[in-house]
């Protein structure tokens, strides 16, 4: 009697929570669809002003060249991100070593540090006067800087690849740590080499996670424009720049809308390709098993391999990051009129002493938390609703249910923001939270989906048998089992919101100040040391979000699921 009462009470709570989740999802979807549709209307309207194409006939050819270059660059960049991310994912998933959590905590960094600072980081480290060249010239007795790849396609690809590999690392390592050992062990007993085991057993099972994360990286690089313009050669162009020029210099919103449409169509094409590949691959993968214990790094080969890899990371990834930290402590010596920059804490003192700093930090935290909550709830609802035995008609196999979460990635945030301003001319923080959630939830979704996918089939089957209904099953089995993915997704959404300076600007929020806007303003007003200090604050913020999350997990206790 009591038991049934309690059961009905929890049932009601579950239903209520599911309705809230559904509302959140609907809210996030509307926040994306309505402004996105509004923003492309000018493309179909009557051209305002002089026809841009008549003035600049070379524009069409240039758009094509821009498209080709953007595709090449994005493809190479995401390939590099996978190549760097896989070893890191292996180490983080399968081996225990000091600094493992710190490595994972870097996941949010690429999302929250603005590309302008990333570019500056690479310049500080690899530039002609950068730390690496200064070091090599000093100890190699060279007169010319030896490292000069920065201003070329290689520079673009390396900057993109290294700054995005943590996305691959996080998504793939979550799956890798739960891969069943039995088949690998069997293959080993039958005499297969490590490489063969990896190629034939491990890699196919990771393919879903690799594909999902590389699609994210690809789209990120596809829309990147500061790094492409800065390093990609003088006179280079991207679709985003053409859009910029049409909307801002020529005030041709018709053309701008058309370019935005082309850009979105390209990105959607990529998403559809990804969905197709994902479907093909997932057909061949078996359900994944449970988490397993991590081994210590052992053996000369493994340790030296790992050391070599970390050295590589240190030079290419940590180096530029630390350069930002060092730059924040550099300033022109006060009083003395001299040439060299010297060490000093002045920039930090000024930044932390600003009256607006703490309120800005508060806004970033609250705004980020709200976006994290909204997007992870929406993503969780979607992931559960579309599941194999989910509680809605959206079946996993349907392509549409895979396109929906990726669609926001096909629209640049400036375009979405533009659509929002047509809806709400003078935005407020609620509009910002909705707009950012509309952009951020795909990232939350990839994390949650990866976590749900790795729940063993046996658990699925047992829960189907024993649970009174799909809601009960979701809340009592699936959510608890995938909570790490949910937290991880919330972390990504937080990082995206914390680092976003373009939506607050496009939405014209009055009296709004957060850390990323502060950074944007500092950089635009000669205050580079202070801007670097501000970027460090952002990086620490998102790093802390991931660090705290990972601290909550006790992987060695999870195996008794």
């Amino acid at each position, binding site marked *: 009697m009591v038991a049934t009462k309690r059961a009905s009470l929890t049932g009601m709570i579950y239903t209520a929570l599911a309705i809230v989740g559904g509302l959140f999802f609907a809210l996030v979807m509307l926040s994306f669809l309505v402004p996105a549709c509004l923003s492309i209307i000018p493309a179909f309207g009557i051209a305002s*002003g002089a026809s841009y194409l008549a003035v600049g006939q*070379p524009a069409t050819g*240039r758009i094509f060249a821009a498209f080709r270059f953007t595709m090449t660059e994005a493809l190479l960049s995401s390939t590099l991100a996978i190549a760097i991310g896989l070893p890191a994912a292996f180490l983080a998933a399968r081996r225990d070593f000091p600094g493992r959590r710190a490595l994972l905590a870097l996941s949010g960094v690429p999302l929250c540090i603005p590309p*302008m600072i990333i570019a*500056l980081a690479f*310049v500080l480290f690899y*530039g*002609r*006067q*950068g730390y690496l060249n200064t070091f090599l010239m000093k100890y190699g007795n060279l007169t010319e800087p030896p490292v000069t790849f920065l201003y070329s396609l290689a520079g673009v690809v390396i900057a993109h690849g290294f700054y995005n590999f943590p996305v691959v690392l996080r998504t793939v390592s979550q799956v890798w740590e739960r891969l069943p050992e039995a088949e690998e062990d069997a293959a080993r007993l039958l005499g297969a080499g490590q490489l063969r085991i990896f190629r034939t057993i491990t890699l196919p099972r990771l393919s879903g996670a690799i594909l999902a994360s590389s699609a994210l990286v690809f789209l990120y690089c596809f829309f990147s424009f*500061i790094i492409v*313009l*800065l390093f990609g050669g*003088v*006179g280079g162009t991207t679709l985003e*720049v053409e859009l910029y*020029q049409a909307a*801002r*210099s*020529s*005030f041709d*919103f018709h053309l701008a809308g058309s370019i935005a449409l082309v850009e979105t169509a390209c990105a959607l094409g990529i998403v559809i390709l990804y969905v197709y590949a994902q479907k093909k691959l997932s057909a061949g993968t078996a359900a994944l098993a449970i988490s397993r214990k991590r081994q210590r790094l052992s053996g000369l080969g493994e340790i030296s391999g790992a050391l070599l890899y970390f050295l590589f990371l240190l030079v290419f990834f940590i180096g530029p990051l630390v350069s930002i930290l060092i*730059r924040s402590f550099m*300033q*022109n*010596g006060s009083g003395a*009129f*001299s*040439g*060299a920059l010297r060490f000093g804490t002045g920039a930090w003192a000024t930044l932390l002493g*600003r009256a*607006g700093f703490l309120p800005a930090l508060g806004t970033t*935290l*609250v705004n980020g*938390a709200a976006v994290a*909550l909204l997007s992870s*709830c929406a993503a969780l609802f979607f992931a559960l609703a579309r599941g194999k035995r989910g509680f809605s008609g959206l079946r996993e196999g349907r392509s549409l249910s895979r396109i929906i979460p990726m669609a926001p990635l096909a629209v640049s945030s400036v375009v979405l923001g533009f659509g929002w301003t047509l809806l709400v*001319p*003078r935005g*407020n923080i609620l509009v910002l939270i909705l707009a950012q959630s509309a952009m951020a939830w795909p990232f939350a979704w990839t994390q949650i989906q990866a976590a749900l996918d790795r729940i063993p089939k046996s658990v699925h089957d047992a829960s189907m048998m024993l649970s009174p209904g799909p809601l009960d099953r979701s809340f*009592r*089995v699936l*959510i*608890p*089992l995938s*909570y790490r993915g949910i937290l991880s997704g919330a972390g990504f959404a937080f990082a995206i919101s914390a680092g976003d300076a373009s939506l607050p*600007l*496009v939405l*014209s929020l*009055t009296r709004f100040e957060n850390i990323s806007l502060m950074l944007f*303003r500092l*950089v*635009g*007003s*000669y205050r*580079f040391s202070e801007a670097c200090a501000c970027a460090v604050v952002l990086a620490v913020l998102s790093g802390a979000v991931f660090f705290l999350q990972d601290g909550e997990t006790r992987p060695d*206790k*999870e195996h*008794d*699921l």
Partner: protein
Amino acid sequence: MPAEGMMTKSRLLSFFLILSFFISLSAVCASGKNDKPANASGTASNELVVYAYDSFTADWGPGPELVKRFEAKTGYKVTMISCGDAAQVLSRAVLEKKAPASDVLVGIDNNLIDTARKEDVLAPYKPATSSIVSKDLVLANDWLLTPYDWGYFAMIFDSASGITPPASLEDLTKPEYAKKIILMDPRTSTPGTGFLAWTLAVYGKNYTDYWTRLKGNILTMAPGWDTGYGLFTSGEAPLVISYTTSPAYHVENDKTDRYKALIFPEGHTAQIEGLGLVNGAKNPKAAKAFIDFMLTDEAQSVLPLTQWMYPVSKTIKLPDSYKAAPMASKTLTVPSADVAAAVDTVISILAK
């Protein structure tokens, strides 16, 4: 397993509960804050809405101080909205043309004035004190825009780099400056457009040859002033395009005279920034009062150390750091339509 499951679930729940608590708390605070100005302002006719670019409205920009002084003097309530950069200020006004939400646009410069006129977003207004603006700074004879500050574009040179500074635009094409010049993209940046206009003014129709010769010496074309100047102060190249007043900033704030503005004998192009009355403004009276106010010494004196540009009023005493900002001997001007047409040509030359 059940214990573990319960634990993780409660952890997750508490995480989200704490989150929602903070959010609702802040939402309450935020709504409380928003209510106040709405109640205080009372009638809408008292409110003046100003669109400006971001560095104008920033804490260290002139916006906050100007608003304070203007409100104290006139009793109007100013809402200053940052739209990004100056081009975004204008594009916003163009998009809202049918139902203007602003009264004044700040930051429309000599490059944007033609577009502003063509799009018909501004109404001419000649302030009573217009005479303080010297003739060569007047942006339009009908006073579609009222200039408030200005500056020369110039190459800034890093004296710690050990190279010989160039003495003219032509010098910039010399092989010794190979990969030593940072420019900004004329499609996306004001100094980028300013430099392009400069080459047009000096070389006329031969500007394409000049760019062909210059091409190899450009290290990169940064998408914006911030990135380009950031590269320059990081020591990536010893020459960058900026304003003659840039060294004054470094003297005032960094206490260094390491960075020098180079004056070229052929003359320099300038950027003149203006503000204007929005066509169909809800509160034209307040808007006109604000435009008048911008020409008073009270407002003009705020500009040198916040905008790092020259005030249009000659009676303002410049700070000592402005001794580091040299004056050009000659001011060059080019019709902005010519500049716009040249952008594509130059990009094509560079892309080859």
